[in-house]
């Protein structure tokens, strides 16, 4: 299936620095239309579209907006999560640098729908070079009279993967360490400074103007039973054409990785970064959808020259470093798993270490406070299932350097 560019429709076709360029491509028409609709009507449309979060968790967007709108209090916030830190993910970067005005428009629509007093964009530190571009888009939109006194402020991250998790993100805006919060309460009830808050991923928001313009029925006619619309993917690794691609939900992994990105002898594919699933090339026909495999959209391809144990070790090192430290299962579990993976890397591991990994995996998945710890075991669990002999060939007594 060829790409279908809904989210990316302006990328490359619009000057990201120019309001006029955006207006010439129907910029702010969706916001005008949304403002003429009652907020509840806007929420109904988003609910009916079936739009689910595009940052990895896939929570129904309309339901999130509705809960927030219905919460008591008149101080509400909309936060755009631009902390894109998952390994191998650069699709939000691509969106921000090519079509910042659409993002501003989307945030304003969300603000209108939930009755927000203010919007924030939490932009990761590593994308600071895009701060000025984004700020200019907000300023020009304001000066052009399009935002109608709705204020959008950019808050910079300071280098912490965990701040992509919504509750750690809010703690960060509040001037704290970015630590995950106990939930419930959930942000729509009690979020930023305890007020009802919506946190939406960049790509999730980018779907809103098209849904308003073309209708929920149009959007829900695209994709699968439980995954409506398209998904933007960023592909890298052992591929001829790394880059950003947008496919209809339910497209096969093969279409993305082989047909579009031109994978070079793929052996292992990591779908969703360090907390994502790992599949062997034999599963190339798996559909990319919430009901199958998805994540935030980062897809990294590894050929058969790459060492499976090395891939898992690097993944666990990343997670151990980025763990916020608040809950014991994740803080201690990730560190222990790194230690065990190092034993596999040096050929010192025993059968007992495989059992230890399995116990740690289920414990962390069941008891960690947030998605980082809950999904941290995924690479290990998946490789034990699909690449078990990578572990077994590294057990003590086997010659080191035997790859699989």
């Amino acid at each position: 299936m060829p790409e279908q560019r809904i989210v990316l429709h302006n990328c490359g076709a619009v000057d990201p620095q120019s309001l006029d360029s955006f207006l010439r491509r129907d910029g702010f028409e969706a916001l005008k239309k949304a403002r003429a609709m009652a907020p509840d009507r806007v929420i109904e449309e988003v609910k009916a579209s079936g739009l689910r979060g595009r940052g990895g968790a896939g929570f129904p967007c309309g339901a999130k907006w509705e809960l927030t709108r219905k919460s008591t209090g008149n101080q509400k916030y909309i936060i755009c999560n631009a902390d894109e830190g998952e390994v191998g993910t650069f699709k939000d970067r691509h969106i921000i640098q090519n079509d910042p005005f659409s993002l501003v428009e989307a945030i304003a629509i969300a603000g209108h729908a939930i009755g927000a007093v203010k919007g924030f964009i939490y932009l990761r530190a590593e994308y600071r070079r895009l701060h000025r571009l984004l700020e200019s888009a907000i300023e020009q939109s304001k000066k052009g009279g399009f935002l109608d006194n709705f204020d959008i402020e950019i808050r910079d991250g300071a280098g912490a993967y965990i701040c992509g998790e919504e509750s750690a993100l809010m703690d960060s805006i509040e001037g704290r360490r970015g630590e995950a919060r106990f939930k419930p309460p959930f942000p729509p009830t009690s979020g930023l400074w305890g007020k009802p808050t919506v946190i939406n991923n960049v790509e999730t928001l980018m779907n809103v103007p098209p849904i308003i313009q073309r209708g929920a029925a149009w959007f829900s006619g695209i994709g699968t039973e439980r995954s409506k619309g398209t998904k933007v993917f960023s592909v890298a690794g052992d591929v001829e054409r790394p880059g950003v691609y947008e496919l209809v939900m339910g497209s096969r992994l093969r279409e993305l990785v082989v047909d579009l990105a031109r994978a070079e002898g793929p052996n292992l594919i990591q779908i969703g970064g360090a907390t994502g699933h790992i599949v062997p090339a034999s599963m190339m026909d798996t559909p990319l959808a919430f009901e199958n495999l998805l994540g935030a959209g980062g897809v990294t391809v590894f050929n058969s020259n790459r060492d499976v144990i090395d891939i898992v070790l690097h993944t666990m090192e990343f997670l151990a470093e980025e763990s916020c430290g608040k809950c014991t299962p994740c803080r201690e579990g990730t560190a222990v798993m790194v230690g065990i993976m190092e034993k596999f890397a040096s050929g010192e591991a025993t059968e007992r270490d495989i059992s230890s990994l399995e116990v740690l995996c289920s414990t962390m998945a069941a008891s960690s406070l947030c998605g980082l710890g809950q999904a941290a075991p995924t690479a290990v669990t998946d490789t034990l299932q699909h690449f078990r002999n990578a572990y077994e060939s590294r057990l003590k007594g086997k010659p080191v350097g035997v790859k699989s």
Partner: protein
Amino acid sequence: MAAKVKAREDLLTALELAQRELGHIPRSLMIELATAAGISVGEAYGVASFYSFLSIRPLGRHIIRVCKSLPCHIKGAESLIDSIERASGLKPGETSPDGRFSFQLVNCIGACDGSPAIMIDDDLHTGLSPESIPALLERYR
């Protein structure tokens, strides 16, 4: 700088500003910011030490950040690290005695389509070879 802090929520922005303007967050400023934010110095220190782009020790004028995550790792991050070590005389984690560079290893910076990728200050540099490093570093005095 402390004048800009009226409440706890202004703290991270103030710390980021200090980092950009002073190259680190000196102890005396930490105390001022904590007082202005109405929190203990320990708590302010806890925030400053949490984030990898903030430093309580002086950093160089230019910060070299090499991505060590998987997509860059498999495309030659290690040889870039070696090349930077040779060209700068620094190991990861170190700052030059003359205050010119700090050299750090970081996690995924979202530039995997140009791997191996590095950042110097806010600038992104992609598609690098070990040979291109000395000339690149020359641009940052």
